[in-house]
């Protein structure tokens, strides 16, 4: 199910502002790729170009190619809605739908797409909540509102919601930045399990987290404020953290940045 992503020569704009420039990389299937880099270097922007969420922002524009198993996401006739069904996303801040119960939140993707069998729905919700390590905590109150959960539970609910539609790639933008260490650990464990089935890309500011969960790590940087962000290097996580090939990477990782 998991698919490979090939990015080549990708540049993204916000109106006239060029946020990232000329990024090329390969994201391997069934692996975790971590994006690290200083604030404002375009990690979120790049992540959002991978499932065509970037163009949702007014003025958002993309040049270049993103191949998902040889199919260009930005090719003519490609439906962004179909792309987003294939490539799911988890956001930095947990954002369950406030009008919906826990059950409905998880079922939202299927229900709103209108493509589901009633009999399957219960199974899918249970499977997704189990997949997100949340089932035991919420199984007795599936009909209560999702916003009544703790922050960490809400984030896992959002992960359950994202995996319920069975995407092939899962993009996560700092999924643990609002969470306590224990919830963070729960989500890191979860990422380890999910990579058996999905291709996962995660943005994080936490070096240890990148080192713990990812197989490959990409380091982004920008030469000066106002300049577009660039990919400095991408390599196996072990190499990046032990023996990176670029000096800037080592400086950033060892905290000698800026």
């Amino acid at each position, binding site marked *: 199910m998991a698919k490979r992503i090939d990015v080549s020569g990708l540049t993204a704009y916000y109106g006239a502002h060029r946020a990232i420039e000329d990024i090329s990389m390969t994201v391997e299937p069934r692996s975790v790729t971590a994006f690290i880099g200083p604030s404002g270097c375009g990690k979120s922007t790049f992540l959002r170009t991978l499932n065509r969420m970037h163009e949702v922002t007014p003025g958002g524009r993309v040049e270049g190619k993103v191949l998902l198993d040889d199919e260009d996401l930005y090719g003519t006739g490609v439906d962004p809605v179909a792309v987003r069904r294939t490539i799911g996303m988890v*956001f930095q801040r947990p954002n369950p*739908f406030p009008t919906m119960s826990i059950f409905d939140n998880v079922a*939202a993707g299927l229900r709103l797409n209108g493509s589901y069998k009633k009999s399957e729905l219960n199974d899918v919700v249970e499977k997704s909540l189990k997949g997100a390590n949340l089932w035991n905590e919420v199984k007795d109150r599936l009909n209560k509102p999702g916003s009544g959960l703790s922050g960490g539970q809400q984030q896992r609910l959002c992960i359950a*919601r994202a995996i319920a*539609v069975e995407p092939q790639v899962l993009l996560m933008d700092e999924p643990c930045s609002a969470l306590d260490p224990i919830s963070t650990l729960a989500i890191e464990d979860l990422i380890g399990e999910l990579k058996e089935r999905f291709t996962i890309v995660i943005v994080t500011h936490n070096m240890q987290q990148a080192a713990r969960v990812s197989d490959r790590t990409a380091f982004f940087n920008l030469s000066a404020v106002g300049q577009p962000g660039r990919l400095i290097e991408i390599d196996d996580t072990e190499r990046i953290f032990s023996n990176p090939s670029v000096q800037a990477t080592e400086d950033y990782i060892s905290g000698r940045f800026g």
Partner: protein
Amino acid sequence: MSTAPLTDKRPSTLRGASLPKWSPWAIAAGSVALAVGIGLAAALDSKVQWGLIAALLFVFGTYGIAARVEGRRQAKDRVATSLVWVCFIVAVVPLASLIWETVKRGVKAFDLYFLSHSMGVVADNEPGGGIYHALLGTLEQVGIATLISVPIGVLTAIYLVEYGRGKLARAVTFFVDVMTGVPSIVAGLFILSFWILILDMGYSGFAGALALSILMMPVVVRSTEEMLKLVPNELREASLALGVPKWRTIIKVVLPTSIGGITTGVMLAVARITGETAPVLLLVWGTNFINNNPFSGPQASLPLYIYRQYSAGTEVAYDRAWAAALALIAFVMILNLAARGIARWKAPKTGR
């Protein structure tokens, strides 16, 4: 006042002298008493003047006392608070007295008979009769106006918030703003010239409803727009990222999240047009008989009924006018309560 403790005698810099909790009430009572005294002494016969003097005394008194005891910063704080209270009272007094007056005069003729009978066979100077025909007319006209303007208004707001970019959106916003300022008589004249004079359709409740919907639409657009803007973008993005098309995102996520506020806005718009008299006068014409059909022939309406009874000038007609006013206020009040109920019921749920 001169015996108040001084701040610098205190050993702690974090604690200063403070007025007791009841002091605002004491100052208020004092300024009212003083104002009554001044009013009597100067033989001012307008109670409004008494009230103004009391308000001024209250604000300045608060500042003076607080500045002596607590210091200038706290005094300013208290003045701001007391100004808010004064404004609140200034706003509430006319409202309360209006309701009081209407209830007092309205109950005389207000009963079940009044609600269930028309003026068909009752002359202006005879007792009896009722508002059934007017209530019916108001319900139908307002109902039709709501049916016309809510879908158009809500869709326009959705366009402006979710899709609108560039020239067209700016033009729509501009025209909505202009429409907000259209006086009701102008809306009435517009429909009169268009519907009755050019298309030659004749007076009817429907013609009135058309004019009312012109008045209602911009209010619905504005309030719906504000409510849609309150929906966090994260929810839209969460839905889009699940592969949900934009239109479904709007229907299934954005609208349910804001439905409480939208309903409140619609109810307020309804309340606003319910009391409109001018367009109804021009277009519905008014009648003393029951006319169920809003599409043909003159109908009555509550504001029009009040106007006619009042101009009839007899004692019983006055009573009827006040009772009808009471019915109108009650109608609007019930709508508002319903709106609050719906807003609370539909509000995004929190808690476990």
